[in-house]
Protein backbone atom coordinates (compact mmCIF):
# COMPACT_ATOMS: atom_id res chain seq x y z
CA UNK A 1 0.00 0.00 0.00
CA UNK A 2 2.86 2.39 0.91
CA UNK A 3 6.46 2.08 -0.29
CA UNK A 4 9.35 4.44 0.36
CA UNK A 5 12.63 4.03 -1.52
CA UNK A 6 15.66 5.89 -0.26
CA UNK A 7 13.67 9.01 0.60
CA UNK A 8 15.63 12.13 1.50
CA UNK A 9 14.04 15.31 2.68
CA UNK A 10 15.72 18.51 3.72
CA UNK A 11 14.23 21.90 4.40
CA UNK A 12 16.06 24.98 3.14
CA UNK A 13 19.59 25.16 4.55
CA UNK A 14 18.64 22.94 7.52
CA UNK A 15 20.05 19.53 8.14
CA UNK A 16 18.20 16.58 6.61
CA UNK A 17 14.78 15.94 8.11
CA UNK A 18 14.81 12.47 6.54
CA UNK A 19 17.70 10.60 4.98
CA UNK A 20 17.65 7.31 3.15
CA UNK A 21 14.27 6.16 4.43
CA UNK A 22 13.22 2.89 2.81
CA UNK A 23 10.29 0.85 4.03
CA UNK A 24 7.10 -0.85 2.94
CA UNK A 25 3.70 -0.88 4.63
CA UNK A 26 1.28 -3.51 3.38
CA UNK A 27 -2.43 -3.17 2.79
CA UNK A 28 -4.43 -3.46 6.03
CA UNK A 29 -1.40 -2.98 8.30
CA UNK A 30 -1.43 -0.94 11.51
CA UNK A 31 1.91 0.77 12.02
CA UNK A 32 3.28 3.06 14.69
CA UNK A 33 5.82 5.62 13.58
CA UNK A 34 7.78 6.65 16.62
CA UNK A 35 10.74 8.73 17.65
CA UNK A 36 11.60 11.76 19.70
CA UNK A 37 10.50 15.24 18.66
CA UNK A 38 12.40 16.25 15.52
CA UNK A 39 13.06 12.65 14.48
CA UNK A 40 11.15 13.17 11.24
CA UNK A 41 7.75 11.59 12.01
CA UNK A 42 5.62 14.55 10.95
CA UNK A 43 7.78 15.15 7.85
CA UNK A 44 7.29 11.53 6.80
CA UNK A 45 3.52 11.80 7.37
CA UNK A 46 3.35 15.01 5.30
CA UNK A 47 5.23 13.30 2.48
CA UNK A 48 2.62 10.53 2.46
CA UNK A 49 -0.27 12.92 1.76
CA UNK A 50 1.82 15.11 -0.56
CA UNK A 51 1.87 18.18 1.65
CA UNK A 52 5.63 18.05 1.05
CA UNK A 53 7.71 16.72 -1.82
CA UNK A 54 10.85 14.70 -1.02
CA UNK A 55 14.23 16.11 -1.99
CA UNK A 56 15.00 12.73 -3.55
CA UNK A 57 13.73 9.16 -3.52
CA UNK A 58 10.45 7.56 -4.49
CA UNK A 59 7.18 7.26 -2.59
CA UNK A 60 4.48 4.95 -3.89
CA UNK A 61 1.01 5.16 -2.37
CA UNK A 62 -1.68 2.75 -3.56
CA UNK A 63 0.32 2.02 -6.69
CA UNK A 64 0.92 5.66 -7.59
CA UNK A 65 4.35 7.27 -7.49
CA UNK A 66 3.41 10.45 -5.66
CA UNK A 67 6.82 12.06 -6.04
CA UNK A 68 5.99 12.58 -9.70
CA UNK A 69 2.34 13.39 -9.14
CA UNK A 70 1.25 16.63 -10.85
CA UNK A 71 -0.45 19.16 -8.55
CA UNK A 72 -3.78 18.60 -10.26
CA UNK A 73 -3.70 14.92 -9.19
CA UNK A 74 -2.97 15.58 -5.51
CA UNK A 75 -6.68 15.93 -4.59
CA UNK A 76 -7.28 12.41 -5.95
CA UNK A 77 -4.55 11.05 -3.69
CA UNK A 78 -5.92 12.88 -0.66
CA UNK A 79 -9.40 11.45 -1.20
CA UNK A 80 -7.87 8.02 -0.60
CA UNK A 81 -6.00 9.15 2.51
CA UNK A 82 -7.73 10.23 5.72
CA UNK A 83 -5.52 12.43 7.87
CA UNK A 84 -5.94 13.08 11.60
CA UNK A 85 -3.98 16.17 12.58
CA UNK A 86 -2.36 16.83 15.92
CA UNK A 87 -4.12 20.23 16.11
CA UNK A 88 -7.41 18.73 14.84
CA UNK A 89 -7.88 21.46 12.19
CA UNK A 90 -11.60 21.81 12.90
CA UNK A 91 -13.42 24.86 11.58
CA UNK A 92 -14.67 26.77 14.63
CA UNK A 93 -17.63 28.45 12.92
CA UNK A 94 -19.06 25.20 11.55
CA UNK A 95 -21.02 22.55 13.40
CA UNK A 96 -19.75 19.04 14.06
CA UNK A 97 -21.96 17.81 11.22
CA UNK A 98 -20.52 20.40 8.80
CA UNK A 99 -16.94 19.70 9.88
CA UNK A 100 -17.28 15.99 9.17
CA UNK A 101 -19.37 16.56 6.04
CA UNK A 102 -16.57 18.51 4.30
CA UNK A 103 -14.86 15.27 3.23
CA UNK A 104 -18.03 14.02 1.54
CA UNK A 105 -18.94 17.41 0.02
CA UNK A 106 -15.60 17.35 -1.76
CA UNK A 107 -16.58 13.99 -3.23
CA UNK A 108 -19.85 15.48 -4.48
CA UNK A 109 -22.24 13.49 -2.30
CA UNK A 110 -25.84 14.68 -2.03
CA UNK A 111 -26.91 16.45 1.17
CA UNK A 112 -29.26 13.63 2.14
CA UNK A 113 -26.56 10.95 1.82
CA UNK A 114 -24.05 13.14 3.64
CA UNK A 115 -26.36 13.66 6.61
CA UNK A 116 -27.10 9.93 6.83
CA UNK A 117 -23.45 8.92 6.61
CA UNK A 118 -22.17 11.59 9.04
CA UNK A 119 -24.82 10.71 11.62
CA UNK A 120 -23.90 7.04 11.32
CA UNK A 121 -20.22 7.78 11.85
CA UNK A 122 -20.77 10.21 14.72
CA UNK A 123 -22.80 7.49 16.40
CA UNK A 124 -19.82 5.16 16.02
CA UNK A 125 -17.53 7.65 17.76
CA UNK A 126 -20.17 8.46 20.38
CA UNK A 127 -20.81 12.04 19.35
CA UNK A 128 -24.21 11.90 17.65
CA UNK A 129 -25.71 14.08 20.40
CA UNK A 130 -23.17 16.82 19.58
CA UNK A 131 -24.02 16.90 15.87
CA UNK A 132 -25.15 20.55 15.94
CA UNK A 133 -22.53 21.84 18.39
CA UNK A 134 -19.57 23.89 17.26
CA UNK A 135 -16.06 22.59 18.08
CA UNK A 136 -15.48 25.33 20.65
CA UNK A 137 -18.17 23.75 22.85
CA UNK A 138 -16.45 20.36 22.82
CA UNK A 139 -13.73 18.94 25.07
CA UNK A 140 -10.29 18.13 23.65
CA UNK A 141 -11.16 14.44 23.45
CA UNK A 142 -14.44 15.16 21.67
CA UNK A 143 -12.71 17.47 19.21
CA UNK A 144 -10.22 14.72 18.46
CA UNK A 145 -13.04 12.27 17.79
CA UNK A 146 -14.69 14.76 15.41
CA UNK A 147 -11.35 15.12 13.60
CA UNK A 148 -11.16 11.31 13.37
CA UNK A 149 -14.74 11.08 12.12
CA UNK A 150 -13.83 13.56 9.36
CA UNK A 151 -10.83 11.44 8.36
CA UNK A 152 -12.80 8.18 8.42
CA UNK A 153 -16.14 9.26 6.99
CA UNK A 154 -15.37 8.19 3.41
CA UNK A 155 -13.63 4.99 4.59
CA UNK A 156 -10.27 5.89 3.07
CA UNK A 157 -7.79 3.21 2.07
CA UNK A 158 -5.13 4.80 4.25
CA UNK A 159 -5.45 6.65 7.56
CA UNK A 160 -2.56 8.80 8.76
CA UNK A 161 -2.78 10.05 12.35
CA UNK A 162 -0.14 12.51 13.52
CA UNK A 163 0.11 12.44 17.31
CA UNK A 164 -3.60 11.69 17.64
CA UNK A 165 -3.43 11.28 21.39
CA UNK A 166 -1.22 14.25 22.25
CA UNK A 167 -2.77 16.43 24.98
CA UNK A 168 -5.58 13.92 25.64
CA UNK A 169 -6.40 12.27 28.97
CA UNK A 170 -6.05 8.48 29.30
CA UNK A 171 -9.75 7.75 28.62
CA UNK A 172 -9.80 9.93 25.51
CA UNK A 173 -6.54 8.32 24.30
CA UNK A 174 -8.10 4.87 24.58
CA UNK A 175 -11.24 6.02 22.77
CA UNK A 176 -9.15 7.53 19.96
CA UNK A 177 -7.08 4.38 19.58
CA UNK A 178 -10.21 2.21 19.57
CA UNK A 179 -11.60 4.24 16.66
CA UNK A 180 -8.36 3.77 14.69
CA UNK A 181 -8.24 0.03 15.45
CA UNK A 182 -11.86 -0.31 14.33
CA UNK A 183 -11.04 1.46 11.04
CA UNK A 184 -8.08 -0.92 10.62
CA UNK A 185 -10.32 -3.92 11.16
CA UNK A 186 -12.61 -2.60 8.43
CA UNK A 187 -9.70 -2.68 6.01
CA UNK A 188 -7.94 0.68 6.19
CA UNK A 189 -4.16 0.80 6.43
CA UNK A 190 -3.36 2.88 9.51
CA UNK A 191 -0.14 4.78 10.25
CA UNK A 192 0.04 6.50 13.64
CA UNK A 193 2.89 8.87 14.46
CA UNK A 194 3.39 9.09 18.20
CA UNK A 195 6.10 9.30 20.84
CA UNK A 196 3.81 7.84 23.50
CA UNK A 197 5.59 4.59 24.45
CA UNK A 198 2.75 3.43 26.72
CA UNK A 199 0.31 3.65 23.83
CA UNK A 200 2.63 1.73 21.49
CA UNK A 201 3.30 -0.99 24.02
CA UNK A 202 -0.39 -1.45 24.74
CA UNK A 203 -1.30 -2.01 21.11
CA UNK A 204 1.21 -4.70 20.02
CA UNK A 205 1.55 -3.48 16.43
CA UNK A 206 4.44 -2.94 14.03
CA UNK A 207 6.77 -0.12 15.09
CA UNK A 208 8.96 1.96 12.81
CA UNK A 209 11.30 4.08 14.93
CA UNK A 210 12.97 7.15 13.51
CA UNK A 211 15.96 9.02 14.85
CA UNK A 212 17.49 12.06 13.21
CA UNK A 213 15.62 11.28 10.01
CA UNK A 214 16.74 7.64 9.73
CA UNK A 215 14.87 4.41 10.45
CA UNK A 216 16.61 2.89 13.46
CA UNK A 217 14.12 0.16 14.28
CA UNK A 218 11.43 -1.71 12.36
CA UNK A 219 9.82 -4.33 14.57
CA UNK A 220 6.56 -6.22 14.35
CA UNK A 221 5.45 -7.00 17.89
CA UNK A 222 1.94 -8.18 17.07
Amino acid sequence: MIQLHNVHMSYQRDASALSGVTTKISKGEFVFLTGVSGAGKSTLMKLLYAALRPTSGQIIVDGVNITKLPSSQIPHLRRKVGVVFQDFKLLPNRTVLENVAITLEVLGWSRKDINKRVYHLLKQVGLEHKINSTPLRLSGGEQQRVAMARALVNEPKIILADEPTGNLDETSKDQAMDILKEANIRGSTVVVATHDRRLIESCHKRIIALDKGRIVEDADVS
Partner: protein
Amino acid sequence: MSRDKTLKRPKMAREGIWGRFCYFSERAFLNIRQNILVNVLTVATIAIAFLILSLFLLLYVNLERVTENWSDRVQVAAYFDRELTKDEIASLTGKIRKIEGTSDVVYVSREEALKRFSSRLKGQEALLDGVTPAILPSSLEIHLKKAFRNSDSVSSYVSSLRKIPELTEVQYGEEWVKRFSDFMSLLRLAGTLVGGFLVLAVVFIVANTIKLTIFSRKDELELMGLVGASRFFIKAPFLIEGVIQGFSGVCLALLILTGVYALFLHNSDMLSSFNTAVSGLVFLPSPYLAILLACGAMLGFLGSLASLKRFISI
Protein backbone atom coordinates in the same frame (compact mmCIF):
# COMPACT_ATOMS: atom_id res chain seq x y z
CA MET B 1 -18.94 -4.93 7.30
CA SER B 2 -16.95 -4.57 4.11
CA ARG B 3 -15.89 -1.16 2.78
CA ASP B 4 -17.75 -1.56 -0.48
CA LYS B 5 -21.01 -2.51 1.19
CA THR B 6 -20.99 0.38 3.65
CA LEU B 7 -19.82 3.00 1.25
CA LYS B 8 -21.66 2.28 -1.94
CA ARG B 9 -21.08 5.53 -3.78
CA PRO B 10 -24.23 7.63 -3.52
CA LYS B 11 -25.41 9.64 -6.46
CA MET B 12 -23.67 12.96 -7.00
CA ALA B 13 -25.33 16.10 -5.78
CA ARG B 14 -26.42 18.24 -8.73
CA GLU B 15 -24.60 17.06 -11.79
CA GLY B 16 -23.80 19.25 -14.78
CA ILE B 17 -22.53 22.80 -15.06
CA TRP B 18 -25.77 24.42 -13.85
CA GLY B 19 -26.03 21.92 -10.98
CA ARG B 20 -22.49 22.64 -9.84
CA PHE B 21 -23.08 26.39 -10.17
CA CYS B 22 -26.17 26.09 -7.94
CA TYR B 23 -24.17 24.03 -5.44
CA PHE B 24 -21.30 26.54 -5.32
CA SER B 25 -23.73 29.47 -5.03
CA GLU B 26 -25.51 27.76 -2.14
CA ARG B 27 -22.13 27.13 -0.53
CA ALA B 28 -21.20 30.80 -1.04
CA PHE B 29 -24.41 32.04 0.63
CA LEU B 30 -23.90 29.56 3.47
CA ASN B 31 -20.31 30.81 3.91
CA ILE B 32 -21.58 34.39 4.03
CA ARG B 33 -24.11 33.41 6.71
CA GLN B 34 -21.44 31.61 8.71
CA ASN B 35 -19.05 34.55 8.49
CA ILE B 36 -21.66 37.26 8.65
CA LEU B 37 -19.65 39.85 10.59
CA VAL B 38 -16.63 39.72 8.27
CA ASN B 39 -18.95 39.90 5.26
CA VAL B 40 -20.94 42.85 6.60
CA LEU B 41 -17.68 44.72 7.23
CA THR B 42 -16.42 43.88 3.74
CA VAL B 43 -19.63 45.02 2.05
CA ALA B 44 -19.67 48.23 4.14
CA THR B 45 -16.07 49.03 3.21
CA ILE B 46 -16.75 48.42 -0.49
CA ALA B 47 -19.90 50.55 -0.20
CA ILE B 48 -17.99 53.49 1.29
CA ALA B 49 -15.32 53.28 -1.41
CA PHE B 50 -17.91 53.16 -4.19
CA LEU B 51 -20.02 55.89 -2.56
CA ILE B 52 -17.09 58.30 -2.86
CA LEU B 53 -16.58 57.27 -6.48
CA SER B 54 -20.27 57.63 -7.34
CA LEU B 55 -20.48 61.05 -5.66
CA PHE B 56 -17.57 62.13 -7.83
CA LEU B 57 -19.32 60.73 -10.90
CA LEU B 58 -22.53 62.55 -9.96
CA LEU B 59 -20.62 65.79 -9.70
CA TYR B 60 -18.79 65.12 -12.96
CA VAL B 61 -21.97 64.26 -14.87
CA ASN B 62 -23.62 67.48 -13.67
CA LEU B 63 -20.58 69.61 -14.52
CA GLU B 64 -20.59 68.07 -17.99
CA ARG B 65 -24.22 69.06 -18.27
CA VAL B 66 -23.43 72.65 -17.34
CA THR B 67 -20.51 72.92 -19.73
CA GLU B 68 -22.52 71.33 -22.52
CA ASN B 69 -25.08 74.06 -21.97
CA TRP B 70 -22.31 76.64 -22.11
CA SER B 71 -20.91 75.15 -25.28
CA ASP B 72 -24.24 75.78 -27.03
CA ARG B 73 -23.20 79.42 -27.00
CA VAL B 74 -20.29 78.62 -29.31
CA GLN B 75 -21.76 79.77 -32.62
CA VAL B 76 -20.59 81.60 -35.68
CA ALA B 77 -22.39 84.55 -37.26
CA ALA B 78 -21.91 85.33 -40.98
CA TYR B 79 -23.11 88.68 -42.30
CA PHE B 80 -24.01 89.93 -45.80
CA ASP B 81 -23.92 93.48 -47.06
CA ARG B 82 -27.17 93.09 -49.02
CA GLU B 83 -30.49 91.32 -48.63
CA LEU B 84 -30.37 87.89 -50.30
CA THR B 85 -33.15 86.24 -52.23
CA LYS B 86 -34.72 83.04 -50.92
CA ASP B 87 -32.89 80.96 -53.55
CA GLU B 88 -29.56 82.56 -52.67
CA ILE B 89 -30.14 81.86 -48.96
CA ALA B 90 -31.03 78.24 -49.69
CA SER B 91 -27.95 77.72 -51.86
CA LEU B 92 -25.67 79.40 -49.30
CA THR B 93 -27.16 77.42 -46.42
CA GLY B 94 -26.58 74.23 -48.41
CA LYS B 95 -22.93 75.18 -49.02
CA ILE B 96 -22.37 75.88 -45.33
CA ARG B 97 -24.08 72.67 -44.23
CA LYS B 98 -21.54 70.76 -46.37
CA ILE B 99 -18.66 72.14 -44.29
CA GLU B 100 -17.57 69.53 -41.74
CA GLY B 101 -18.67 70.45 -38.21
CA THR B 102 -21.86 72.29 -39.12
CA SER B 103 -24.78 71.32 -36.92
CA ASP B 104 -27.43 73.86 -37.87
CA VAL B 105 -27.73 77.04 -39.98
CA VAL B 106 -30.42 79.63 -39.24
CA TYR B 107 -31.10 82.67 -41.44
CA VAL B 108 -31.69 85.89 -39.48
CA SER B 109 -33.36 88.55 -41.63
CA ARG B 110 -33.00 92.31 -40.99
CA GLU B 111 -36.50 92.37 -39.44
CA GLU B 112 -35.67 89.43 -37.18
CA ALA B 113 -32.38 91.11 -36.21
CA LEU B 114 -34.26 94.28 -35.17
CA LYS B 115 -36.80 92.23 -33.22
CA ARG B 116 -33.99 90.48 -31.30
CA PHE B 117 -32.22 93.76 -30.72
CA SER B 118 -35.31 95.40 -29.28
CA SER B 119 -36.03 92.41 -27.05
CA ARG B 120 -32.53 92.78 -25.59
CA LEU B 121 -33.23 96.43 -24.87
CA LYS B 122 -36.45 95.72 -23.01
CA GLY B 123 -37.45 98.80 -21.03
CA GLN B 124 -35.20 101.06 -23.11
CA GLU B 125 -37.02 100.71 -26.41
CA ALA B 126 -36.87 104.49 -26.80
CA LEU B 127 -33.25 104.08 -27.84
CA LEU B 128 -34.45 102.39 -31.01
CA ASP B 129 -36.65 105.27 -32.12
CA GLY B 130 -35.91 105.98 -35.73
CA VAL B 131 -33.98 102.73 -36.20
CA THR B 132 -35.24 100.79 -39.21
CA PRO B 133 -34.41 97.20 -40.21
CA ALA B 134 -32.49 98.55 -43.17
CA ILE B 135 -29.56 99.64 -41.03
CA LEU B 136 -29.05 96.16 -39.59
CA PRO B 137 -27.38 93.45 -41.68
CA SER B 138 -29.06 90.12 -42.34
CA SER B 139 -27.00 87.14 -41.23
CA LEU B 140 -26.67 83.40 -40.87
CA GLU B 141 -26.38 81.89 -37.39
CA ILE B 142 -24.26 78.76 -37.56
CA HIS B 143 -24.32 76.19 -34.75
CA LEU B 144 -21.44 73.76 -34.56
CA LYS B 145 -21.35 70.09 -33.68
CA LYS B 146 -20.21 69.31 -30.09
CA ALA B 147 -16.82 68.01 -31.17
CA PHE B 148 -16.08 71.27 -33.05
CA ARG B 149 -16.80 73.62 -30.16
CA ASN B 150 -13.16 74.20 -29.23
CA SER B 151 -10.81 77.02 -30.10
CA ASP B 152 -8.77 75.27 -32.83
CA SER B 153 -11.75 73.65 -34.56
CA VAL B 154 -13.76 76.88 -34.55
CA SER B 155 -10.94 78.93 -36.10
CA SER B 156 -10.32 76.28 -38.76
CA TYR B 157 -14.08 76.18 -39.42
CA VAL B 158 -14.21 79.95 -39.74
CA SER B 159 -11.31 79.87 -42.26
CA SER B 160 -13.35 77.52 -44.46
CA LEU B 161 -16.34 79.80 -44.05
CA ARG B 162 -14.37 82.89 -45.11
CA LYS B 163 -13.65 81.23 -48.43
CA ILE B 164 -17.33 81.68 -49.37
CA PRO B 165 -17.43 84.99 -51.34
CA GLU B 166 -21.07 85.89 -50.48
CA LEU B 167 -20.17 86.26 -46.80
CA THR B 168 -18.92 89.76 -46.07
CA GLU B 169 -17.98 89.21 -42.43
CA VAL B 170 -17.68 86.27 -40.07
CA GLN B 171 -17.69 86.66 -36.28
CA TYR B 172 -17.39 84.04 -33.54
CA GLY B 173 -16.30 85.60 -30.22
CA GLU B 174 -12.72 84.34 -30.54
CA GLU B 175 -11.65 85.30 -27.02
CA TRP B 176 -14.65 83.67 -25.35
CA VAL B 177 -14.25 80.45 -27.34
CA LYS B 178 -10.56 80.29 -26.41
CA ARG B 179 -11.30 80.75 -22.72
CA PHE B 180 -14.09 78.22 -22.82
CA SER B 181 -11.84 75.75 -24.62
CA ASP B 182 -9.05 76.19 -22.04
CA PHE B 183 -11.52 75.82 -19.18
CA MET B 184 -12.88 72.57 -20.68
CA SER B 185 -9.34 71.17 -21.08
CA LEU B 186 -8.58 72.01 -17.45
CA LEU B 187 -11.85 70.48 -16.30
CA ARG B 188 -11.21 67.28 -18.25
CA LEU B 189 -7.65 67.01 -16.93
CA ALA B 190 -8.78 67.55 -13.34
CA GLY B 191 -11.65 65.10 -13.81
CA THR B 192 -9.35 62.46 -15.27
CA LEU B 193 -6.76 62.91 -12.51
CA VAL B 194 -9.21 62.91 -9.61
CA GLY B 195 -11.29 60.14 -11.19
CA GLY B 196 -8.17 58.08 -11.89
CA PHE B 197 -6.93 58.39 -8.32
CA LEU B 198 -10.36 57.55 -6.99
CA VAL B 199 -10.61 54.44 -9.18
CA LEU B 200 -7.13 53.36 -8.01
CA ALA B 201 -8.13 53.92 -4.38
CA VAL B 202 -11.33 51.92 -4.86
CA VAL B 203 -9.46 49.04 -6.52
CA PHE B 204 -6.89 49.07 -3.70
CA ILE B 205 -9.51 49.18 -0.94
CA VAL B 206 -11.75 46.49 -2.45
CA ALA B 207 -8.86 44.14 -3.29
CA ASN B 208 -7.35 44.45 0.19
CA THR B 209 -10.66 44.13 2.00
CA ILE B 210 -11.40 40.93 0.14
CA LYS B 211 -7.86 39.72 0.77
CA LEU B 212 -8.41 40.22 4.51
CA THR B 213 -11.72 38.34 4.33
CA ILE B 214 -10.01 35.42 2.64
CA PHE B 215 -7.03 35.60 4.99
CA SER B 216 -9.38 35.26 7.96
CA ARG B 217 -10.47 31.92 6.45
CA LYS B 218 -7.09 30.56 5.39
CA ASP B 219 -7.52 27.57 7.73
CA GLU B 220 -10.67 26.61 5.85
CA LEU B 221 -8.82 26.88 2.53
CA GLU B 222 -5.99 24.73 3.85
CA LEU B 223 -8.36 22.11 5.23
CA MET B 224 -10.34 21.89 2.00
CA GLY B 225 -7.10 21.10 0.19
CA LEU B 226 -6.13 18.49 2.77
CA VAL B 227 -9.41 16.57 2.47
CA GLY B 228 -8.98 16.31 -1.29
CA ALA B 229 -10.83 19.28 -2.73
CA SER B 230 -9.64 20.35 -6.15
CA ARG B 231 -8.42 23.89 -6.66
CA PHE B 232 -11.60 24.79 -8.54
CA PHE B 233 -13.82 23.27 -5.83
CA ILE B 234 -12.11 25.43 -3.21
CA LYS B 235 -12.07 28.58 -5.31
CA ALA B 236 -15.57 28.58 -6.83
CA PRO B 237 -17.61 29.50 -3.70
CA PHE B 238 -15.06 32.16 -2.74
CA LEU B 239 -15.21 33.71 -6.20
CA ILE B 240 -19.02 33.78 -6.06
CA GLU B 241 -18.75 35.30 -2.58
CA GLY B 242 -16.43 37.98 -3.99
CA VAL B 243 -18.94 38.80 -6.74
CA ILE B 244 -21.77 38.98 -4.18
CA GLN B 245 -19.70 41.21 -1.88
CA GLY B 246 -18.70 43.58 -4.69
CA PHE B 247 -22.21 43.74 -6.14
CA SER B 248 -23.85 44.23 -2.71
CA GLY B 249 -21.29 46.91 -1.83
CA VAL B 250 -22.14 48.90 -4.96
CA CYS B 251 -25.90 48.36 -4.41
CA LEU B 252 -25.54 49.75 -0.89
CA ALA B 253 -23.46 52.70 -2.15
CA LEU B 254 -26.08 53.51 -4.82
CA LEU B 255 -28.90 53.22 -2.29
CA ILE B 256 -27.15 55.72 -0.02
CA LEU B 257 -26.44 57.95 -3.02
CA THR B 258 -30.12 57.81 -4.05
CA GLY B 259 -31.13 58.75 -0.49
CA VAL B 260 -28.67 61.66 -0.37
CA TYR B 261 -29.81 62.79 -3.82
CA ALA B 262 -33.51 62.63 -2.93
CA LEU B 263 -33.00 64.45 0.36
CA PHE B 264 -30.42 67.11 -0.46
CA LEU B 265 -29.40 67.31 -4.10
CA HIS B 266 -32.57 66.86 -6.09
CA ASN B 267 -33.61 70.52 -5.90
CA SER B 268 -30.22 71.93 -5.09
CA ASP B 269 -29.49 75.30 -6.70
CA MET B 270 -25.73 74.87 -6.31
CA LEU B 271 -25.24 74.90 -10.08
CA SER B 272 -27.57 77.74 -10.89
CA SER B 273 -24.88 80.25 -9.92
CA PHE B 274 -22.77 78.81 -12.74
CA ASN B 275 -25.55 78.51 -15.21
CA THR B 276 -29.13 79.68 -14.74
CA ALA B 277 -30.37 77.35 -17.43
CA VAL B 278 -29.55 74.38 -15.18
CA SER B 279 -31.59 73.92 -12.03
CA GLY B 280 -30.98 71.06 -9.56
CA LEU B 281 -28.67 68.12 -10.08
CA VAL B 282 -29.51 65.19 -12.32
CA PHE B 283 -28.97 61.66 -10.96
CA LEU B 284 -26.47 59.28 -12.53
CA PRO B 285 -27.77 57.99 -15.89
CA SER B 286 -28.61 54.28 -16.00
CA PRO B 287 -25.54 53.27 -18.09
CA TYR B 288 -23.36 54.70 -15.30
CA LEU B 289 -25.29 52.71 -12.70
CA ALA B 290 -24.92 49.52 -14.74
CA ILE B 291 -21.17 50.14 -15.19
CA LEU B 292 -20.72 50.75 -11.45
CA LEU B 293 -22.58 47.54 -10.57
CA ALA B 294 -20.57 45.55 -13.13
CA CYS B 295 -17.32 47.07 -11.81
CA GLY B 296 -18.26 46.12 -8.24
CA ALA B 297 -18.96 42.52 -9.21
CA MET B 298 -15.82 42.36 -11.37
CA LEU B 299 -13.61 43.83 -8.64
CA GLY B 300 -15.03 41.36 -6.12
CA PHE B 301 -14.27 38.50 -8.49
CA LEU B 302 -10.75 39.66 -9.36
CA GLY B 303 -9.94 40.54 -5.74
CA SER B 304 -10.95 37.03 -4.64
CA LEU B 305 -9.08 35.42 -7.51
CA ALA B 306 -5.85 37.27 -6.71
CA SER B 307 -6.10 36.53 -2.98
CA LEU B 308 -6.96 32.85 -3.44
CA LYS B 309 -3.85 32.36 -5.53
CA ARG B 310 -1.84 33.25 -2.46
CA PHE B 311 -3.63 31.03 0.01
CA ILE B 312 -4.25 27.81 -1.92
CA SER B 313 -1.16 25.67 -1.86
CA ILE B 314 -2.25 22.75 -4.05
